[in-house]
């Protein structure tokens, strides 16, 4: 479980998050949704200790992120930020291999290599394994970064807009992959999604952020209502259903 208690955050004096208190259940796929600039990335970065915590407390699987050593946290959660530009010139397989670093600290074992190979296979990246990262398309690079986080093999996986740059089939494959992680391996996933229908189709738990506060949270059926979504996005939104799950219609 991730417990967030009374977290507020400012950037350069401007308040970005206001007194957020919530829980992300373990063994579930949680989606963070909300309009641009709502503070989704900021919240995810705070949980992933990519940004220092200013006020409040966050515990990930019982580890207080402010006091737990960072290398210990890296064995509990893997974070993928929204921006994934890297300065060094790496091949795809080399990048994914870094996902194992928290476990071997520079001396990879056969088991580490096996994890890397599995991650590459899982995201269908085998044919690209020897390409340099800067010779990949945006979507391919995105998948490589996700594979790296996957190879880290942690209880929690935090992803910020992982569907960026992915086409429909790869986006769907990724969501199915995350679903399988949760259902079959009992892992926990938190993912920022700007496309609500992906949340509607795949998430167990949804947290809707607006202007730095939580507007609603709970199961998809409870959160994804016409009234609430219209308020969240300041636009009239209609809801339908498809295969027993909510479906958001923006051309109402």
């Amino acid at each position, binding site marked *: 479980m991730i417990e967030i208690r009374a977290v507020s955050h400012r950037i350069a004096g401007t308040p970005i998050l206001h007194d957020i208190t919530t829980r992300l259940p373990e063994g579930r796929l949680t989606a963070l949704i909300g309009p641009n600039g709502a503070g989704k990335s900021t919240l995810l970065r705070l949980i992933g200790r990519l940004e220092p915590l200013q006020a409040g407390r966050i515990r990930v699987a019982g580890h207080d992120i402010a006091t737990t050593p*960072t290398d210990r946290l890296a064995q509990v959660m893997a974070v993928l930020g929204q921006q994934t530009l*890297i300065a*060094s*010139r790496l*091949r795809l397989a080399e990048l994914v291999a*870094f996902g194992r670093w928290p476990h071997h600290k520079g001396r990879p074992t056969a088991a580490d*290599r096996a994890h890397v190979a599995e991650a590459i296979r899982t995201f269908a990246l*085998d044919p690209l*394994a020897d390409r340099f990262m800067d010779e990949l398309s945006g979507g391919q690079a995105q998948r490589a970064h996700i594979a790296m986080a996957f190879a*880290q093999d942690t209880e929690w996986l935090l992803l910020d807009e992982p569907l960026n740059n992915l086409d429909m089939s790869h986006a769907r494959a990724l969501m199915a992959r995350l679903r399988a992680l949760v259902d079959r391996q009992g892992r926990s996933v938190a993912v920022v999604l700007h496309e609500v229908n992906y949340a509607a189709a795949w998430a167990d738990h949804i947290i809707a952020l607006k202007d730095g506060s939580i507007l609603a949270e709970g199961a998809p059926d409870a959160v994804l209502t016409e009234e609430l979504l219209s308020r969240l996005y300041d636009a009239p939104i209609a809801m339908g259903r498809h295969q027993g799950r909510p479906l958001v219609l923006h051309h109402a």
Partner: protein
Amino acid sequence: MAEALTLAARPAALRPVWVLAGLACLLAAVSALWMWQGLGGGGNRGFVLGLRANKLAALALVGVSVGVSTVTFQTVAANRVLTPSIMGFDALYVLLQTALVASLGIAGFAGLPATAKFLSEIALMVLLASALFGTLMLQGARDIPRMILTGVILGVLFRSLAGFMGRVMDPAQYAVVQAASFASFNRVNATLLPVAGAVTLLAVLAAWRMSARLDVLALGRDAAVSLGLRHQAVVIAALSLVALLVSVSTAVVGPVAFFGLIVAGLAHGLTRSASHGVLLPAAGLIGATILIGGQWLFERQLGQAATLSVVVEFAGGLFFLYLLLKGRIR
């Protein structure tokens, strides 16, 4: 799948070994050339060999310091095209020397033995540089262009401040500073060689031990933190090593401008590796080889030792541009 991966990775994995071996041979060759070429028999053979060994040591020391410090710095700065020199490290060292003489006076400070003076200077330099540039890089990650601009401007500021202090200070004191900080490839500051050698050796070993962590650092801050690297500690440690190495090379031969850029560019371009276990030794070897080979060519063959730094800049700069255009430096 696992086999396919290792198979495919083999040529790439072997390449660095060959490159390093080749560079080591090249360095051995130019060193031998430097020591024994044109060496007459006669009574002063031992004396000449001693002189040559001294200068060889100085050139190798500087080449290695510049190469290793630049590669390390570029990783910390997440930027393949900055050098400690561009960001003002050597200017800070010169400024520090000037300020120490100006504030503590000739008798007090400049009167110290050269080694003690040097050690206290580099201690101060490490503190100052890691505090200043550490803050800059850790805070600056949010706005990288601003960080880089700040660094470049700091370099200009330090250089100008040192020049300014030099102009307005007491001429006798200025003479002391000038003697200390205007070493060059021809007027190597030989008294410092033993201590400078020891410092360099320690710093290079420390950098090499950090190479796995530097590999992770090179992924960028977010990825490094996510992988559990103690980002801030590693940045500060790496910058301290850079400050040590820059102090050494500046003290022995003075500021070296773009030499580091060229060496680091060559190291990346030749090894095509992202592993610091390979990059750091390669950069050290390349730096030493260029300096020794260049000095041999100019001092012994062309009789124009004064222009080595000019030619390093010219030939190295052209080669760098060539690599740049070939897309080998990114």
